[in-house]
Every structure is written in structure tokens, then in C-alpha cells.
């Protein structure tokens, strides 16, 4: 039965940090911690997300805390905006802790051009990007993969894209885990998942996935920005999408399969979408390998989209804008399970970190970061809702200490898609955004309405909370000048 939770169930640890003690429910193995200001806490308590956070604290092998970021909102089983680390070898891995869109994530590219140089060509540029980056539910791209080639893509992710001519070497060093999760075994990806994803490489999908052309409107750390080749009024591009039908099928299959697995291992859970297996079990290892394949598919997908965006910029701007070429700032996942080492009660421990609607935010000097980021920390890409600001953060030592090297992922929904469509007219929203100088290319007006800013939290509030808590720090703010979505 659903448990209605209120503010009185939480203890304030410090400004912006709340805790639900382990004794709140007998099945909890650790306390739950939520990062939020008062307003975001109220939003979190308005749906079932805090109850879901408490549920995740019952998972076998969970260590330290079940964690929620300030953009938390209700999901399937796990809340979106949740972080759960389970100790290996026998702590569990849960497909629901990753999400259906495995390796949904964000990539940011940056040009050397200033917004005033590009502005006169924005309509044409957005049109060409839209044409070269198919979007919409079930959309298909131009690339047709044979079985052996799909196997290579699933195993190698961005490396496949480099060898196939869709990437530059520096794209890979500017991608989380160099764009390939180790341990991927294509043999564990079903025929159905392959069938659904085979023709979708280089496509955006629909829903809240988008490509956005932005300008850098504020810099919070000029030295770090310069290190990354960023400057004020620079034209940048965000890509937000994931593993399309392939990842969705993988998650679906393992959530179904693990309905029996939890019985086999005697695991009792408060929610069927939390189903899991011990990480080191055959079932757990199989899911991790299949998940890694889907994650690599998503890295390759974003890489091909980036390639096509670069082609679009060249097609429209060559001869008109001098420095139109796009280099990559970074690419991050916000739905993933990773095997990492973290400090738990004074010891270095191998854990499986589930981030569902949460982003890796490794601090300066963290193992696994390429040399270029070892001094400043890992870039973290936080998209806002449509038409609003987005942020680039940097990881901190605070995130390593407090949240398994994790931070928020975006604005977080406060209103369902259905309600947003009833509240907002898509065409009116498009006109409003246009009047603010933002070009919109959308596959449908109802799809646009679903993504209206009022359906989301204020991303600046979210980012302020994580910065105050020391689990991320602001580098740059981006503001949209064009949005392309399915």
C-alpha cells in the first residue's frame, strides 16, 4: 500500500539536505537522503517520489544512503533523480535503477563562433539540423547495420563511431568512460532489441529528447571555461537522447525476467519495478553486460547525431561564418549503472552505482577522468526545460564524499505529459518562444505542449541546491536560441 509521506517524516541535516532515518521502516537497510530546498522538497512530497526513495533503501547490499537529487520526481520503481550504490560482489543490480532509456544522456558541442554571427542563419541552420537528425517515435536513420557491425557497435560504442568515420579522437576523451562501457557482450542482446534498434542509429526519438542551439550567457569560472575553450556569447549545441528502442527492449526484458529471479534468490521487495539480482550472479552479470551494450548504442547514437550536426553547421555556415566548426565539451549519461570504487565508512569499496536521472560528477583528481579534466573536475551537463536556461557544472570532491560522485541531471517534471497537454496549447507556446527569439522545430504541437516549461521544476533552483551542498559547481549558463525536437 502506498505510504503518504510528509515533511515531518524528514529530519533536516543541514540547509538543503534532508534525511529519512533507517528506523522509518523496518525493511530499510540505510537512511535516505534528499538534497532539496524547501520549495523543491514540497514538490518532491507532492508525488510518490520520496516513498520510492525509501523503497530503494530496502535493496540488498545498499550502502551509506539511498540518495535523491533536487530534481527528483516519481518514476517506475526507482524515483527519477535517484542514486543507489550497492556493494559488490553480492549487492544487487536493478534494471529499474537505470531506467528504460539506458544511457539517456547529454552531449554539448561548442563552436568558435559568436551568437551574432550565427543568428542571421538560424532558421536555415535549425531546418538543416532537423532534416539531418531524424526525430519522432520510432524514427529511423540512414545507417543500415549488418549483424557483425551491430555487434561491433554494441561492444565498442564511440570507438565504433570513430572507426566508421563519425567521430574525432578527441570526442572519445571528452565522453564519459570514453564512450564505451567495458564488459558489454552483444550475445546477450536479444533479437528483438536488435530489431527495434538496428535502424535507429543517428536518431533523436521523441518526448523530452531534443537538440538545442544555445549561446553561453554567463561564465562562473573564467579560467576553467577557457581551459575548455568556452567564452561568453559562444554558440553551443546540446543533444539529449538515449538508446532508443534497443535500450527500452533490454530493460523491459530484464524487468520481466527478474520477476522470477527475485524469488529464486529470496529477495523481497516493496515494488515490482525494483526487481534485481545479486551483481555477481549469472543473472546480474548478464543484465550488466546487456545494459553495457545498450549504453554503448546510446554513446554511438549521440556520436552520429553530433557528426550530422557538424555536417549541418558546415553546410549552412561555410563561407558565411568563419569559425563554425564544433568541438566537443563533454558527453554524460544520466541513466546508468557503473562499477566504481568509492569510500564507504573509511574503506575503499567496489560498488555498483545506479544513477537514474542523476549524473556522474567526478571531482578533480578522481580516477577515471582523462588528464584534461584532472585539475578542474568532470564537466556535467544539466539541460533545463525547453526554452529555459541550461548549465554546465564541474564535479567536486564534495560529490565524491557525499553522493558517490553524483549530482542532478536536469529540471525534473512537476506535471504529467497528459496534464501539460491539457494546460498548454503547443502552437501558442511556439509563438511565445518565437517572440523571445527562439526558433522551434517540433514534430508535433502536442509533443511541444508536453514539454512546456511549466511542466518542469526551475533548473536554476536545482543547480543552486547542488552547488550549495558541494556536489557540483557552476561553470557556465547556456540559453537557447533554437530547439529541435520530435
Amino acid at each position, binding site marked *: 500500500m502506498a505510504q503518504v509521506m510528509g515533511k515531518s517524516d524528514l529530519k533536516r541535516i543541514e540547509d538543503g539536505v534532508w534525511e529519512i532515518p533507517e528506523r522509518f521502516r523496518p525493511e530499510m537497510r540505510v537512511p535516505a537522503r534528499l538534497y532539496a530546498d524547501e520549495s523543491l522538497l514540497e514538490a518532491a512530497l507532492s508525488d510518490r517520489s520520496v516513498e520510492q526513495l525509501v523503497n530503494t533503501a530496502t535493496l540488498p547490499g545498499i550502502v551509506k544512503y539511498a540518495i535523491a537529487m533536487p530534481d527528483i520526481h516519481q518514476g517506475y520503481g526507482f524515483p527519477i533523480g535517484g542514486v543507489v550504490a550497492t556493494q559488490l560482489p553480492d549487492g544487487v543490480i536493478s534494471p529499474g535503477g537505470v531506467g528504460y532509456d539506458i544511457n539517456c544522456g547529454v552531449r554539448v558541442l561548442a563552436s568558435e563562433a559568436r551568437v551574432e554571427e550565427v543568428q542571421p542563419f538560424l532558421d536555415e541552420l535549425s531546418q538543416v539540423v532537423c532534416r539531418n537528425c531524424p526525430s519522432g517515435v*520510432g524514427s529511423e536513420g540512414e545507417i543500415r547495420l549488418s549483424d557483425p557491425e551491430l555487434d561491433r557497435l554494441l561492444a565498442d560504442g564511440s570507438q565504433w563511431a570513430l572507426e566508421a568515420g563519425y567521430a574525432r579522437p578527441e570526442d572519445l576523451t571528452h565522453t564519459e568512460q570514453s564512450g564505451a562501457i567495458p564488459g558489454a557482450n552483444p550475445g546477450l542482446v536479444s533479437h528483438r532489441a536488435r530489431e527495434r534498434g538496428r535502424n535507429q542509429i543517428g536518431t533523436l526519438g521523441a518526448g523530452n529528447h531534443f537538440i538545442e542551439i544555445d549561446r553561453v550567457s554567463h561564465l562562473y569560472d573564467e579560467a576553467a571555461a577557457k581551459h575548455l575553450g568556452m567564452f561568453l556569447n559562444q554558440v553551443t549545441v546540446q543533444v539529449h537522447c538515449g538508446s532508443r528502442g534497443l535500450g*527500452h527492449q533490454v530493460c*523491459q526484458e530484464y524487468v*520481466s525476467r527478474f*520477476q522470477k529471479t527475485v524469488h529464486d534468490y529470496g529477495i523481497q521487495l516493496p515494488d515490482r519495478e525494483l*526487481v534485481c539480482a545479486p551483481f555477481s550472479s549469472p543473472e546480474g552479470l548478464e543484465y550488466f553486460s546487456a545494459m553495457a551494450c545498450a549504453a554503448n548504442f546510446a554513446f554511438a547514437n549521440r556520436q552520429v547525431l553530433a557528426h550530422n550536426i557538424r555536417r549541418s553547421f558546415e553546410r549552412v555556415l561555410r563561407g558565411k561564418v568563419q569559425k563554425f566548426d564544433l568541438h566537443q565539451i563533454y558527453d554524460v549519461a544520466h541513466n546508468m549503472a557503473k562499477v566504481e570504487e568509492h569510500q564507504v565508512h573509511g574503506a575503499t569499496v567496489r560498488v555498483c552505482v545506479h544513477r537514474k536521472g542523476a549524473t556522474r560528477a567526478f571531482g578533480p583528481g578522481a580516477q577515471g577522468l582523462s588528464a584534461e579534466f584532472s585539475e578542474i573536475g568532470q564537466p556535467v551537463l544539466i539541460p533545463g526545460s525547453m526554452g529555459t536556461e541550461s548549465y554546465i557544472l564541474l564535479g567536486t570532491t564534495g560529490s565524491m564524499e557525499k553522493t558517490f560522485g553524483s549530482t542532478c541531471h536536469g529540471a525534473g517534471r512537476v506535471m504529467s505529459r497528459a496534464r501539460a497537454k491539457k494546460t498548454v496549447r503547443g502552437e501558442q507556446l511556439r509563438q511565445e518562444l518565437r517572440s523571445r527569439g527562439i526558433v522551434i522545430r517540433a514534430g508535433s504541437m502536442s509533443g511541444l505542449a508536453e514539454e512546456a516549461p511549466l511542466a518542469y521544476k526551475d533548473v536554476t533552483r536545482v543547480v543552486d541546491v547542488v552547488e550549495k551542498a558541494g556536489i557540483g559547481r557552476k561553470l557556465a549558463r547556456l540559453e537557447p536560441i533554437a530547439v529541435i525536437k520530435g
Partner: protein
Amino acid sequence: MPELFVQAAEAILEMQGQRNGRTRTGRKGNTTTREVEVEGFDRETLLVNWLNELLYLQETKQETCTALEILEISDGRLRARLQVQPGRRGRRLIKAVTFHGLQLRPSAKGWEATLVVDV
């Protein structure tokens, strides 16, 4: 119980635009029969897997299901017959049927199910 599975399927097909003429079929009268078999750990998993099977078939075979019947059903397995016509690709509005909030319960009227679909 079989009727519950039929009604749940009809509801999904309705949401997918296959019951109100929104998905136009291709060549009229060109109906074929497809038999499907689905397994599940328990009744609830069987229901979810059955509905996801219909979504998978619509997406990958690009067919419209005009009628269906459950031929046999137990707690862990079902066999069904679908009447299908080649159709235009229908938009897969439903990405998956989930286990979120899933309830399967007897009532005075028979069996009732509550399902949440991911759109």
C-alpha cells in the same frame, strides 16, 4: 481470466489507434492469422508480457490487429490467435507496459487489472 487478457489487449490496441479507424489498413480483405505464445513467471508477468508482445508485433511487423482470441491460458503461459492485416506503420505511442502499480484482482464483476503504460 481469459476475458481480462482480451479486454486489456483491446485497451492497448485502442490506445495505439487500432480500434477507431485512425490506423488505416492496407489491402482490404487481406487478413492473415498469427498465433502467438507468451510465457510469464506469474499471472501478472504473463499479462505484461502479453501486452508488450502486441506492441512489439505492431511495431516490427507493421500490422493492424483486427481481432484476437485467447486459445489457452494458465498462470504462466498463454496461446492466442490474432487476425492481422498489413497496415501503415502505426505510431508506437506506448513504449512499454510496466509493472508499476500493477494490480490483478478478483472483483464482484470478475477480474480487474490496473496497469501503467510508459508513453
